């Protein structure tokens, strides 16, 4: 044995409960990094073996086969073979099998066992298999496979002690890996062997509960299915507005209270202005959108955890095919509604490189959570909160429209890309649709907490920094008392904005917007903070300063300008993190630069068309 802690890897088919087992074995202390040179995530953690020794546990990407069909599967294969750059040769391999799905999952297990490496099988989700009417004989499976088989229920932490003891026992064994010879015949043999062993292991099988199939009769119905999908998405976007009202009120109240408190304690001067106008005004105007972002993430997490997301991909596949994509692109694109970064990273499961590139390039067109603050403030200020019937609000309807606008834009762009820069044969769509599962409250809360934390950290760092820089540039140089110019016009930022204004004036943007667009390059939400800071500084007196951002927007923007501003943000690529992740995922500057250029061009055209159409309609 080497001095270093032994390396144990978790491998198995997707949907075998591998991540749940990983979480149960390592707890919350996990490290997520990337394998060098490839964009595949390496998730590692530590766990204690039965004798108290620490071991490093790595969760490998889910694989159906050692014969790789995607970048993810290629990493799984080379780690298991001990050939992955930047990874030690594993000392033991835990293969996770879904107990209810043996004939399919055993195939991968047999492939790995055939390599002659130290393997332990975790026969996972035993409880669900029993509920499905299956009675299994783990001892029989162990005898057939010739490696230890430990029944586990990862989510209830059952069987974990036995598992780590079995792993420990195998660590002392030394083996040399054999080579894999890939062929149709080999695949054929593996499948037959898997089926045979599965049949031997299953002691009895009754009909069990079929509720998952019954649910699919509805959710995958050719007519009802798409209607339900549309309804779910519509409810989701209505909820973002309706459920967030109260918590937004609390946050607004808290930030007002903070501003009043600062005003009362600090003497007039730089620090007081900085805290009230820059820090509280700027960051507060962004944090206020936390409730809406969390509601959106709640829906996406629930859809993913329940297994509905793959059904949505199934329903959408035919439509995606008409623009040259597949249902596989639907999941990354739907995740992009929360944030384009996880969405772009989720494209790694798309096997076809042209499909994947197209999906990455259109992902920023999906309305991410960072656009919500921008949309929300403009819609709140300019669209009346009217009921258009059936309990549907006009504001929610406009928001829904903006989402649709982004989707339609993405589809058109994908179609163009697939016949130009990402030209290639139409790839297929092959996907497993796992059984429905009741989402676990703990996982959902953990997911929400992680999202909230990321957002608050952004608000505390990027957004705070951008707001502070803007505030300083707006405050200095100070306008002389006798000058007829306003402070904003006289300031450094105002002068820069005045240069940009002629460029954006044809699409209906005023100087304040030009000003907000610069710091918003860092992140879209900054636009709101920037507008708040600008108007706070520009306020001629105390009374004007007390007016809300909404009231100020209403008095200084026309409706066509507001609509053009919304259209701009449907397309504008204003997010440094997205550009950075695109560079990483496409291995170079070519595609992120292409993305920047085409999105800015679209944003400009869309805002222009919106502005002049609104003017022509007399809005």
């Amino acid at each position: 044995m080497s001095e270093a802690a032994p390396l144990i890897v978790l491998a198995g088919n997707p949907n075998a409960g591998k991540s749940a087992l990983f979480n149960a074995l390592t707890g919350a202390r996990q490290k997520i990094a990337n394998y060098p040179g490839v964009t595949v995530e390496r998730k590692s953690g530590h766990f204690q073996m039965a004798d108290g020794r620490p071991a490093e546990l790595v969760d490998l990407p889910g694989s159906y086969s050692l014969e790789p069909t995607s970048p993810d599967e290629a990493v799984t294969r080379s780690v298991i073979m001990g050939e992955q750059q930047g990874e030690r040769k594993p000392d033991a391999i835990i293969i996770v099998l879904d107990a209810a799905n043996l004939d399919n999952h055993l195939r991968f297990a047999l492939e790995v066992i055939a390599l002659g490496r130290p393997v332990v099988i975790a026969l996972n989700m035993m409880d669900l298999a029993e509920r499905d009417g299956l009675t299994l004989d783990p001892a029989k499976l162990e005898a057939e496979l010739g490696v230890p088989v430990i029944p586990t229920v990862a989510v209830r932490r059952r069987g974990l002690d036995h598992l780590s003891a079995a792993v420990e026992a195998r660590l002392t064994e030394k083996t040399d890996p054999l080579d894999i010879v890939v062929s149709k015949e080999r695949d054929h043999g593996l499948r037959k062997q898997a089926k045979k062993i599965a049949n031997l292991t299953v002691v009895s099988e009754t009909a069990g509960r079929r509720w998952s199939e019954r649910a699919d009769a509805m959710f995958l119905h050719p007519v009802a299915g798409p209607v339900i999908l549309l309804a779910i998405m519509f409810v989701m976007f209505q909820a973002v507005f309706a459920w967030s009202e109260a918590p937004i009120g609390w946050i607004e109240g808290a930030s007002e209270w903070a501003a009043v408190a600062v005003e009362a304690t600090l003497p007039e001067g730089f620090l007081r202005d900085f805290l009230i106008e820059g820090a509280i005004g700027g960051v507060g105007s962004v944090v206020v959108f936390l409730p809406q972002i969390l509601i959106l993430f709640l829906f996406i997490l629930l859809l993913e955890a329940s297994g509905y997301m793959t059904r949505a991909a199934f329903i959408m596949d035919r439509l995606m095919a008409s623009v040259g994509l597949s249902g596989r692109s639907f999941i990354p694109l739907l995740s992009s509604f929360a944030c384009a970064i996880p969405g772009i990273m989720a494209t790694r499961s798309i096997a076809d490189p042209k499909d994947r590139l197209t999906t990455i390039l259109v992902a920023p067109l999906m309305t991410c959570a960072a656009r919500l603050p921008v949309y929300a403030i403009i819609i709140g200020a300019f669209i009346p909160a009217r009921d258009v019937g059936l309990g549907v609000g006009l504001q929610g309807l406009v928001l829904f429209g903006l989402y649709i606008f982004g989707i339609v834009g993405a589809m058109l762009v994908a179609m163009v890309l697939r016949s130009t820069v990402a030209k290639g044969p139409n790839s297929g769509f092959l996907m497993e649709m796992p059984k429905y599962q009741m989402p676990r409250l703990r996982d959902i809360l953990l997911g929400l907490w992680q999202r909230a934390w990321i957002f608050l950290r952004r608000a505390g760092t990027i957004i705070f920094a951008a707001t502070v820089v803007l505030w300083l540039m707006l405050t200095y140089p100070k306008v002389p008392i006798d000058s007829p110019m306003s402070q904003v016009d006289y300031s450094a930022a105002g002068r820069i904005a005045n240069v940009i204004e002629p460029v954006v004036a044809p699409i209906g943007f005023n100087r304040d917007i030009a000003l907000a667009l610069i710091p918003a390059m860092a992140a879209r939400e900054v636009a709101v903070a920037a507008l708040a800071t600008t108007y706070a500084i520009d306020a001629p007196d105390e009374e004007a300063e007390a007016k809300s951002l909404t009231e100020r927007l209403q008095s200084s923007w026309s409706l066509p300008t507001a609509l053009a501003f919304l259209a701009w943000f449907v397309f504008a690529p204003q997010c440094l993190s997205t550009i950075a992740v695109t560079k990483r995922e496409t291995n170079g500057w070519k595609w992120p630069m292409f993305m920047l250029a085409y999105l800015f061009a679209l944003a400009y055209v869309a805002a222009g068309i919106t502005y002049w159409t609104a003017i022509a309609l007399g809005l």
Partner: protein
Amino acid sequence: MNAPVTLAVTLDRLSMRQRAEISAIDWDSMSENEGARLRALGLDEGVEVEKLHKGMFGFSDPIALKVGRMMIAVRKSHASAISVVIPA
């Protein structure tokens, strides 16, 4: 005992809820990678499948198959390369 009467069709033309056994797959009509993926998801000669669902109205594409205890989505273009026999 009668000799089993079988009827051969391609998977895309199989009727709903119909069980059938895959008799042949035209591997040459797809890429190496697609073929490997098909086999990895359990679709191979000799496997019993059941057609459970089809896509959006007007298209009936893709289709959802029950393979073992798994449900797999396949496009019609692949399904048409898979021949099945319906046991009598």
